[in-house]
């Protein structure tokens, strides 16, 4: 028993000689500060939320996703109005609607050129219950239209998933790289 006491006493004295309360408080402070910063790291929370609600492109997956993951226009209201951000085929759009800028939902306004590269995704059409492959082309060569700002970006991934991120000026490969507005071109129906 005395031997055990001596062992604990010597290790406690040794620890006290090698460290100070001040350094302990410093280390503890660093750990606490570091823990507070962890939630600020660029972690893919959107995908995690969608994984919990259903597979990408699956019918109803977009509807089930939490509103927080859907950006400003999280409304589920069905509309036929192609000048409304809620129109179904705008589900992953990020920009000004060309239908409010002198063009249509799928054609660029006069004086602009359709981007040669684009973001392609799928949208669910509640009218027929099917998913469609949609190409979001920017219309380029004129200054920003400024009408009908639409930000939905459903199923977008963080910037480190570059091919699935829409914070890109798709006019980058055009001769005139000024962004004007965005169209949604249906390329076909998406399979299960």
């Amino acid at each position, binding site marked *: 028993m005395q031997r055990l006491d001596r062992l604990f006493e010597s290790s406690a004295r040794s620890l006290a000689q090698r460290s100070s309360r001040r350094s302990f408080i410093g280390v503890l402070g660093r750990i606490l500060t570091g823990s507070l910063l962890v939630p600020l790291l660029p972690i893919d929370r959107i995908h995690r939320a969608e994984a919990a609600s259903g597979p990408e492109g699956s019918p109803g997956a977009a509807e089930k996703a939490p509103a927080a993951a859907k950006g400003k226009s999280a409304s589920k209201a069905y509309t036929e109005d192609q000048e409304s951000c809620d129109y179904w085929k705008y589900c992953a759009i990020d920009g000004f609607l060309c239908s409010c800028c002198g063009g249509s939902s799928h054609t660029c306004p006069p004086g602009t050129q359709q981007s040669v*590269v684009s973001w392609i995704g799928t949208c669910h059409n509640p009218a027929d219950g099917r998913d469609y492959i949609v190409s979001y082309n920017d219309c380029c060569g004129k200054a920003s239209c400024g009408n009908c700002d639409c930000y939905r970006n459903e199923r977008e991934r963080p910037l480190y998933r570059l091919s699935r991120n829409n914070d890109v000026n798709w006019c980058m490969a055009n001769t005139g790289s000024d962004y004007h507005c965005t169209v949604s071109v249906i390329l076909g129906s998406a399979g299960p």
Partner: protein
Amino acid sequence: MALLGVTAAVGSAARAGPAQDYALHCMGCHGANAQGVPGKVPPLAHSLVRFMNNAAGRRYVLRVPGAANSMLSDAQLAAVLNWVVTQFDADELGATTPRFGEQEVAANRHTPMAGVLATRAAVLREIAAVGPAPATGY
């Protein structure tokens, strides 16, 4: 008119598989006919098959950022690449051209490539020494 061509190309392949994976993960930049964008995005048509016939070219294709970092699984990536050459390079695709497999993709795509342009230039020189080379200028 070009737009109609795009619609028809994807519309006819409206089911899950390599055609749809190509549309969702590759076509936005490489184009509906894998033609690329001159000076900006390298074409896959008449290029990918030439990489496939060369060992260094195969490794290069699987490690370029667009392929290596895509959200496709190893098996899906192999299937898409094989689909592209069948679809757009049928005239150059020989019976001896080895197709990509899941294991080959897995063994290569996770090794980062530091100098993409320098690697491409070196691979192109090697391929050009024995036959027609993939597109230059990228």
